[in-house]
């Protein structure tokens, strides 16, 4: 079986081991398919404010429009408002194929609001896929309702294998009309999470497991967790770095987030057992757009409330057909990613600036993030994205651009090259001083093709020997 049985990372989305019928379910889902996330968008509707557990990494009090992390939301919607927003976004951003409910609390701690929203969306926009993200405490209670609504994707956040570790993560849970604390709470929630996972798998619902990784808390257990959820039938594991939040228990205790190196190491440990999601952006509970972007501000309550939206599934379908044509064209380029090259060469990290469609189509100065790929003679492997602050704000002179630029460069210091559609003179000089190559010549090419050409030309120096 080897590679094909679990996806060795060289295939385009690492999901090649899935049976065909399941692959179909995920191939247009930006969160589940690494490849699809270049083309399709998702949105979260914030209809679920209540939560039934208290995680030590979460502070429900802190809520700010500039804060980008899960559980954060600027405005709460009623189910009716949420549907209005969904229809507006569906017409404005037709590549949006998935609507999820992920909070800001727990969707299943707000069953009335959550299911009412899903029912309304299903009625008005049946072509949109629905998904749900939960802490799992009440998943078994609602799994049949989830199944009946045709929701075939559920994400469960499971952070531990043993109650001892879980007790360091959850300060309390509210279960069966009672607040539980300590080891008792930990036991109940773990039992419920794994039971919920099993219940979903038994009903053919795809399960992705999210894990918040804090090295000092659950670092030792993640490999076992990855193995366990895989064994139980989850199809994807998303290990997310713990993000420090103002006023959380972890902040008070001085628990630190993992370094990028630690995250990479733990992912490498888990990867032989389980397909990992590497393109997660840990988005807000009200995020809108492609994974790397958030267009939520364009669809605030006051903007959508008076909108008259004429929903057209036909229009959306026509756009999706166009996207599929683009995807098909890129298929050949995608296959390059899995192709081992004939010549031996070293392994290099390359940063790519892209704003979607799997193309090198973003400028260095306006990029909000860089996609980091590891390129070797074994093929191309997507590692993760790195968020940066764009130092160029259009026509305004680059105020404080220097500091921002320094920060971006330090974040990319382990990369051999940056491939972007355009890189200005100023950053180019600084980047090259630091030994990072600036490559514009592959602008607007598909990313896999650009990376392969880069590797052949600059690492294997094929062109030189041929020329």
């Amino acid at each position, binding site marked *: 079986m080897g590679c094909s049985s679990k996806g060795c990372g060289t295939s385009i989305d690492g999901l090649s081991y899935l049976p065909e019928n399941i692959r179909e379910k995920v191939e247009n889902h930006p969160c589940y398919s690494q490849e699809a996330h270049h083309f399709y968008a998702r949105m979260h509707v914030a209809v679920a404010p*209540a939560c039934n557990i*208290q995680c030590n990494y979460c502070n*429900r009090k802190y809520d700010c429009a500039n804060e980008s992390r899960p559980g954060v939301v600027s405005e709460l919607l009623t189910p009716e408002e949420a549907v209005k927003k969904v229809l507006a976004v569906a017409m404005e951003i037709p590549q949006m194929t998935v609507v999820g409910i992920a909070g800001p609390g727990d969707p299943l701690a707000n069953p009335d609001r959550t299911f009412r929203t899903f029912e309304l969306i299903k009625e008005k926009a049946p072509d949109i896929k629905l998904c749900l993200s939960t802490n799992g405490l009440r998943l078994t209670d609602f799994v049949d309702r989830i199944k009946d609504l045709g929701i075939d994707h559920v994400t469960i956040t499971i952070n531990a294998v043993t109650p001892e570790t879980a007790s360091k993560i959850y300060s309390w849970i509210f279960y069966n009309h009672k607040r539980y604390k300590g080891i008792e709470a930990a036991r109940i929630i773990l039992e419920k999470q794994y039971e919920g996972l099993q219940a979903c798998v038994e009903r053919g619902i795809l399960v992705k497991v999210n894990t918040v990784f804090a090295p000092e808390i659950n670092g030792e257990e993640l490999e076992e967790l990855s193995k366990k959820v895989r064994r139980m039938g989850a199809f994807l594991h998303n290990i997310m770095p713990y993000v420090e939040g103002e006023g959380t228990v972890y902040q008070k205790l001085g628990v630190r987030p993992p370094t990028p190196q630690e995250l990479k190491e733990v992912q490498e440990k888990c990867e032989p057992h389980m397909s990992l999601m590497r393109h997660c952006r840990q988005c807000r509970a009200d995020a809108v757009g492609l994974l790397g972007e958030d267009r939520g501000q364009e669809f605030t309550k006051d903007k959508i409330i008076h909108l008259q939206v004429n929903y057209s599934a036909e229009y959306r379908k026509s756009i999706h057909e166009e996207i599929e044509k683009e995807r098909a064209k890129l298929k050949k380029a995608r296959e390059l990613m899995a192709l081992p090259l004939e010549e031996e060469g070293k392994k290099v990290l390359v940063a790519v600036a892209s704003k979607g469609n799997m193309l090198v189509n973003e400028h260095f100065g306006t990029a909000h993030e860089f996609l980091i790929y590891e390129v070797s003679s074994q093929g191309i492997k997507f590692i993760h994205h790195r968020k940066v602050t764009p130092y160029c704000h259009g026509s305004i002179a680059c105020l404080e651009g220097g500091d921002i630029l320094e920060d971006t460069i330090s974040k990319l210091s382990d990369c051999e090259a940056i491939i972007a559609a355009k890189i200005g003179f100023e950053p180019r000089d600084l980047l090259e001083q630091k030994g990072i190559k600036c490559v514009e010549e592959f602008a607007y090419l598909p990313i896999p093709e650009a990376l392969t050409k880069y590797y052949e030309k600059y690492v294997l120096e094929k062109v030189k020997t041929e020329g």
Partner: protein
Amino acid sequence: MAMYIRQENCISCYACEQECPTGAISHDEEGIFTIDPYVCVECNGFYEEAQCLAICPIEGCIVKLEVATYGCA
């Protein structure tokens, strides 16, 4: 005998309203939640503990009315 919500601490998360067995908790359009002291029985006869207090994510947001009024129970 009743529970009380300290407005300045409330994050309007709806959790308590959903759990209240007597329907004593309601909110206005602004998302300000209040407990009707004439309806609230602190869950006596329903559950072992006051449900609103048990699920509230903010320490010290929901207290017994006596505590809110006199500073102690």
